């Protein structure tokens, strides 16, 4: 029997914005994969993304049903399970382009690291909401959360998958920021790490390692790799002008000039075909989603719920900020996809679950169980 208040408190606006972003994403992806779709109408990445989306919607509904409070009981176990999967990746993982990130289960490849994004939020939210921990915790109370974060981040870095490792780290940092970190801890951290940069840079790093970091910071140094992506991306975006070239009319992205156009650089496909207005629309939709999600977090009546929503929102928000910043040539090129838009099954599934959990907290904000 579904409680009437559950329906009442369901945030229809979030669902609407979520669907709108998904729709914009499918339009952009269709265009980016148009050549593939024409080559084979039944076997292409677009169809696969739609299949993942349907699975994502099932997960979305599934994660609405369970009371999020019950997730607390699973958080430690699911954390341990995903860490175990991450440990399995170097042993039995599938290697693609020199990185071992995937596990294969019944013919379906998935990245355990993607699910770590969710699990780290869930488990840290659980940890921080235990009553022993006040807001603005003491330094020693950060030891456990730092370890909980460091272990998966290191495992993912070793795959190597800088982008996902970064996202797990950022999600954890968002929660730490919200639970409250005293300015003096931040200062201590800076005082300890900043003076180390100079000796590490001058003595510990080999020239090629330095070069890699410099390329990350200024892609122009690597005209054949990242620099080429950025230049092509800028041409694609700029050539969209105000109105864009129109659906399926992009030339820059239709041709091969833009590598990774269906994954990390999908935003430039949108920008080329839908122009400044299309980009504005997508940015507004993301802003609306973040606003609505934060409203859910502020209305939630317990710390766990609030932190869960904040963490999930943070995942979407920071991926969006980093991806678009990279495509616009304002941030280092790191492999982080644009949420809901870039091609990628595990990522899409993860994000659908994230939205499901946000709605979940929203629905149960006034529901008090007497046990």
């Amino acid at each position: 029997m579904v409680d009437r208040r559950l329906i009442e408190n369901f945030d229809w606006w979030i669902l609407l914005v979520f669907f709108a972003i998904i729709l914009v994403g499918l339009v952009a992806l269709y265009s980016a994969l148009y050549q593939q779709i024409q080559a084979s109408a039944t076997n292409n990445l677009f169809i696969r993304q739609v299949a993942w989306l349907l699975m994502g919607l099932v997960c979305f509904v599934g994660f609405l049903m369970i009371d999020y409070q019950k997730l607390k009981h699973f958080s430690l176990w699911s954390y341990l399970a995903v860490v175990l999967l991450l440990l399995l990746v170097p042993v039995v993982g599938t290697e693609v382009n020199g990185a071992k990130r995937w596990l294969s289960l019944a013919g379906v490849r998935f990245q355990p690291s993607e699910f770590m994004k969710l699990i780290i939020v869930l488990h840290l939210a659980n940890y921080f909401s235990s009553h022993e921990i006040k807001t603005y915790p003491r330094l020693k109370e950060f030891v456990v959360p730092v370890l909980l974060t460091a272990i998966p981040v290191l495992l993912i870095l070793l795959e190597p998958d800088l982008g996902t490792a970064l996202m797990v780290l950022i999600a954890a940092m968002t929660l730490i920021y919200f639970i409250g970190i005293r300015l003096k801890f931040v200062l201590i951290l800076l005082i300890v790490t900043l003076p180390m940069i100079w000796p590490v840079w001058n003595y510990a790093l080999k020239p090629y390692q330095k070069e890699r970091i410099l390329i990350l910071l200024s892609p122009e140094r690597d005209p054949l790799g990242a620099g080429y992506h950025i230049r092509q991306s800028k041409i694609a975006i700029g050539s969209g002008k105000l109105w864009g070239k129109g659906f399926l009319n992009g030339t820059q992205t239709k041709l091969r000039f833009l590598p990774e156009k269906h994954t990390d650089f999908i935003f430039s496909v949108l920008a080329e075909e839908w122009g400044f207005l299309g980009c504005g629309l997508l940015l507004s939709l993301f802003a609306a989603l973040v606003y609505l999600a934060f409203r859910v977090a502020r209305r939630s009546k317990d710390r766990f719920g609030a932190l869960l929503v904040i963490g999930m929102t943070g995942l979407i928000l920071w991926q969006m900020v980093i991806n678009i910043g990279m495509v616009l040539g304002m941030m280092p090129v790191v492999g982080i996809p644009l949420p809901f838009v870039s091609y990628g099954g595990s990522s899409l599934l993860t994000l659908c679950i994230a939205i499901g959990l946000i709605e979940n907290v929203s629905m149960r904000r006034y529901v008090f169980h007497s046990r």
Partner: protein
Amino acid sequence: MMRSKTSQPGQAQTGRSDPDSLSDKLSRQILLANWEPTDEGLFQRQYLLLVGVLILILIIYVLRLWQLQILNGARYRYLSENNRVRLEEIPAPRGIIFDRHGIPLVENRPAYHLMLVREDVPDLDGTLEQVAAICGNAPDELRKIVEDNKATRSFVPLRLMADIDRDCLARLEARRLRLPGVFIRVEPRREYKFNGSAAHVIGYLSEVSEEELKKDEYKQYAAGESVGKIGVERGLEPYLHGKSGGRQVEVDAVGRRIRLLSETLPIPGRNLWLTIDAGLQRKVESILSDHIGAIVALDPKSGSILAMASSPTFDQERFVRGLKAKDWNEMSADPSHPLLNRAVNAAYPPGSTYKPIMELAGLQEGAINARSHLSCPGFFRFADRNYRCWKETGHGSVDPHRAIVESCDVFFYQLGMKLGVDRIARYAGLFGLGEKSGVELRPESPGLIPTSEWKKRAKGVAWQKGETISISIGQGFDLATPLQMAVAYAAIANGGTLWQPHVVGRIEGSHPEDVTEVGGRVRRKIPVAPEYFKMVQAALAGVVNEDRGTAKQIRMASIRIAGKTGTAQVVRMPDNVSRKLLARITKDQERDHAWFVSYAPAEDPAIVVSVLVEHGGHGSSTAAPLARQVIAAYIESEPNGPAQAEAAPVPASNHRPSSG
């Protein structure tokens, strides 16, 4: 959800803002007793700061989009429609290979490839026909290349013709404006200064294969790149290869370059200086040219290989021009296996050249001493079988010196029985037999020195005592490469230092500081007393310089040579047939392999020469004269005393590159 009793209900209350009545408050407090307090008030600051940052980021992004799409939109639209930015690879020149005196053995020359970008060609068939007419090719050949590459995308340049000649290049250049989509790509290619010389040491290049691309070693390689297949080209591939660069160019609608946008220069491969002496190498090759076999010359004071020849050799230029399947089949079906480096990758029974090692083992183990005398009646009887000496009449009473000088088989049969298979194997192992020498050339054969344990494992049967008799004279299961024998004799000549042989002396990069001197590495000091080495050295000198020595005919007035002949059985000798008879009845392919391993000058050895001639018959008649010619050629090339040419060896191993 458990909530501890100590937490204060009041804290929960502060978060609520709409309490109406007292009862409402109370009931809420009771309900909240199962929940943690809300942190709404406390999170307020965090929200405000975060939302502020987000708004700032969004504004920056919108401004950036405005700048790109509105302010510069027209320029970018122009760029996207009228111009294209292309990525071109600049291949890295491979490292040059020099001999020890700096004479280039392998260099690079430019090769011109005719490339075609289908996307830029308005009339594909017409273009193919024109190109074919200019260069005198069959148009169908070109059409087939296009057909075969249908799956590759149309902007990827296809190589229509590789390494075209100058005439064709000139004619093409003159018509290039009328042939849109056609361009010439320049690529460095190998040029062998002495084609066929040191071919096995240098090796050859060929396109990286699909299986190789899957290996970690070739992770950085793209399909179509060249990799070294044998010799130092293979062994030092990571040093020679370099790193290709590339450039971003703006091209117009027909693919012509308009502007260079940015460029990364390739990093050339490192140059190699070999320890090979090109002059000596060619002399050694001509000395060996009438035979099938191998000659290795090395410096016993450093393990540097001065010359290494394997006959027959092969035409390296053939690989540069691109080996057709037919050529390849022809080469690999050749019964004389020209691609096989017989000095390193072919193992033969060492025959009597094994005897000095046996004798050193016997002396060190106390099985014999300088005054020992063993009798040789011409055969050794064991288990109802007669094991013959090469001299049917026998040597009579034989001491260790005479045993080597006259190469008495029966002496060593008896010594072998005293030592037993496993002690023999231990000493052979100390001299580097049965293990890879570690030279930079690959693949390398480890040879074989049997032990009783090996026999049990590999053959499933226990070691037979009679087999010990065979291995005592280097027959039976024993196998060694000409290089291994050279290294073992170098250790005898220098009094017990076993070197890791090497052909690379120096690796130099484009940066003046990027130079690595590769010294010899000592594998081990052989634990045999110096006086025993002296005894064996005297006996080896006797082989050439005493009147009863088996190689007395190669004696030279100018230099004292020391060495040992060897004859390796190819066909098992029937019990009751004499060797002389057998030699007469066997065919060429069944004749024995001839060995001669030597060093000179006997007093202060500067060069070790190991000669193997396949099916050459007797070591003394076939192999020894070749060794003599090599030593004579060496003295000619190093008139001021041979040792001076070599720099002091570097004993530590940390200067060696970790090849592979």
